[in-house]
């Protein structure tokens, strides 16, 4: 589908560039289309990374996170995370709803926490997206998200150097769970920690699995809780998004991340 406005618009650019249509340029000639030696080496480094290096990255991640008001907690098993989330839930006040509630992704790692059981004693419900490929259930789940105290997600990767979480959008994992609740809690495995943005982009660009999936319709990088400095350059947390971000890193368990 090419419209007349597009033809004129692009034609105008060609004219400004003094381009003749005699030899059209190809996009493929402008970009690198296959991994070079550096890219391949970096992918191998990421792939072969051992547990010890992983723990070093976790330390870096934790240290940087501290500087941006983000708490990183290393834990050995899911039960500890569930107990910690129950503790946080009991400790904080509801912001948007009258009652406290939790919304969570439908994700193997999140499901394995058995959150529902963990927070039952304090009488807090946990909601999961039932079927977000249809209108009514998706709307109903978003309503839950609007009033929830806590949103629990996982992430695709965690970047140590900037304390960043990255996530593509997939069924059962709506964007609003990390956005609407007052507190965002993310659960990731040690193996998901990368060094930096460069490693992430190398994977996104060259890793066959990542490439096949693409960036999806929406990919988010989350670094710290919502913040603003728009009034006299004074830093304030909780402008529009979550006012608190807590990240649990599973260091021991072998789980499908």
């Amino acid at each position, binding site marked *: *589908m090419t*419209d007349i406005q597009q033809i004129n618009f692009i034609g105008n650019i060609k004219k400004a560039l003094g381009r003749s249509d005699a030899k059209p340029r190809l996009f493929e000639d402008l970009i690198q289309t296959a991994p070079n030696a550096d890219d391949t080496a970096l992918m191998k480094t990421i792939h072969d990374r051992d547990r010890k290096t992983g723990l070093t990255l976790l330390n870096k991640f934790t240290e940087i996170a501290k500087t941006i008001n983000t708490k990183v907690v290393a834990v050995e098993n899911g039960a500890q995370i569930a107990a910690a989330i129950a503790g946080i839930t009991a400790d904080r006040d509801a912001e948007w709803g009258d009652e406290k509630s939790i919304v969570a992704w439908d994700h193997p790692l999140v499901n394995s926490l058995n959150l529902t059981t963990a927070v039952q004693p304090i009488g807090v419900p946990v909601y999961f997206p039932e079927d977000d490929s249809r209108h009514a259930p998706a709307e109903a789940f978003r309503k839950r998200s609007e009033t929830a105290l806590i949103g629990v997600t996982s992430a695709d990767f965690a970047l140590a150097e*900037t304390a960043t979480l990255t996530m593509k959008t997939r069924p059962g994992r709506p964007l609003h769970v990390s956005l609407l609740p007052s507190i965002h809690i993310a659960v990731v495995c040690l193996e998901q920690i990368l060094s930096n943005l*460069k490693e992430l982009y190398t994977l996104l660009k060259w890793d066959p699995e990542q490439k096949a999936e693409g960036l999806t*319709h929406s990919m988010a990088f989350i670094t710290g809780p919502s913040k603003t400095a728009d009034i006299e350059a004074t830093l304030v947390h909780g402008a529009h998004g979550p006012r608190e971000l807590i990240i649990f890193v599973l260091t021991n368990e072998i789980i499908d991340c």
Partner: protein
Amino acid sequence: MNSSNYTQKARSAIANPALHTALVNLQERFGKGAALGYQNFPEGLDLRLKAHDIRMGTIENLDVILETLTNNIRKSGGHVHFAMDAQVAVDHCLDIARKHDVAMAVKGKSMLSEEIGLNHALAAAGIETVETDLGEYIIQLAEETPSHIIAPAIHKTRQQVGRLFQEKLGIPYSEDPPTLTLAARKALREKFLKADMGISGCNLACAETGHITTVSNEGNIRMSTTLPKVHVAFMGMERVVADLKDHDILFRLLSMGGAAQSMAGYVSYRGGLGEKGLFAGPREFHLIIIDNGRSKILADPDFREMLCCIRCGGCLNVCPVYGEIGGHAYNSPYSGPVGAVVTPLLNGINRHADLCQGESLCGACMDACPVNIDIPRMLLLLRQKLAEGDKTWNVQVKSRLEQAAFRVWSTLIQNPRLYDWFLKTAFVGQKFLPGKNDMIRRLPFAGSGWTRSRDFKKVAAKRFMDRIS
């Protein structure tokens, strides 16, 4: 017409101590922070030079890159529209709004939307548009215009914001930033959940993947583009990179240049939403790509470099002139050194003649620019066009008198005898001018402007050449 306006606004900004404190803080924090940050990149300071080459490469292949971006967005079910000027861009947005029965739109900060006058157009069509970046929200409530590209309300004090919120939001007066932020959080939450349309700008699109990216720290852009049923993004035609490799570099430089951050709080890649869109989220994604004078800049090899700009606002954070006169004097959403080049090129060089003449050519902007744009070169070139006139850009000579004076001066200094005579006459003549020691307090005629704020050195009794020979 804007000339007196510039001087007037600059004067009142200079006389405003609260604004000064804010601008000093801003420049201390962001300007110095970015300078330090550039040194700490693994690639070092050379990254800026590399980024400049990448940007030029993109600009020189803009036709191919924009077509690829468009095809890739459409492939994933997104809509792309092209707009040669502001009116067409606004019309596209109004069409989409009508199709979706939009009554209210929430908006992320976008200087481009200010450039095309989007809010006024939507208001005229009966659509309420709410700015959601805290700074933009403040100035929207105050019915003012942004004075910085990324810190639009930098000119407002906490007391002013306190009174504004007391009046407009009906909350008790407070000058505590967390309390005020919480009030805005509550007020805007309702708007986010109710809005039918989310509007955003675009920091950098990626042609290879078919996405735009938006950057914010508050999360307001994520809210605006995740909750309403339709998302409309506005993009200046140059705000695109070819692939993820380029994106990596430019994105890191954007965060550092703009806010001295290694990584902004929230970065979102957005592309087409498939056939049906998302349930409980946007059903449609529209990208409006805008020219509005940019292809004219592209066509001029001397100014083409300006299209490398990624609008981080980094040059404002170091500019000594911006630091004194603030953003409003620039009479455009684009202020500071970037505004002093872009605004005349987009809106008329004569009309905004004061902008390039007001800058000091100190070069701080170029050092602070994450993509190393030679802004001083272009400021000088604009001055040249104003001095000599220019057909392509339709520039009239700004001052015939000044032009004539320089012609006389040129003749004078090329003729030694005439020059000697001039010096002697001036030496005698200057005795009649008010002065002290070897300085003249007030020059006559056209020279009076020069001595309004400084003294002029007297002509010496003996020429330099005579003294050494």
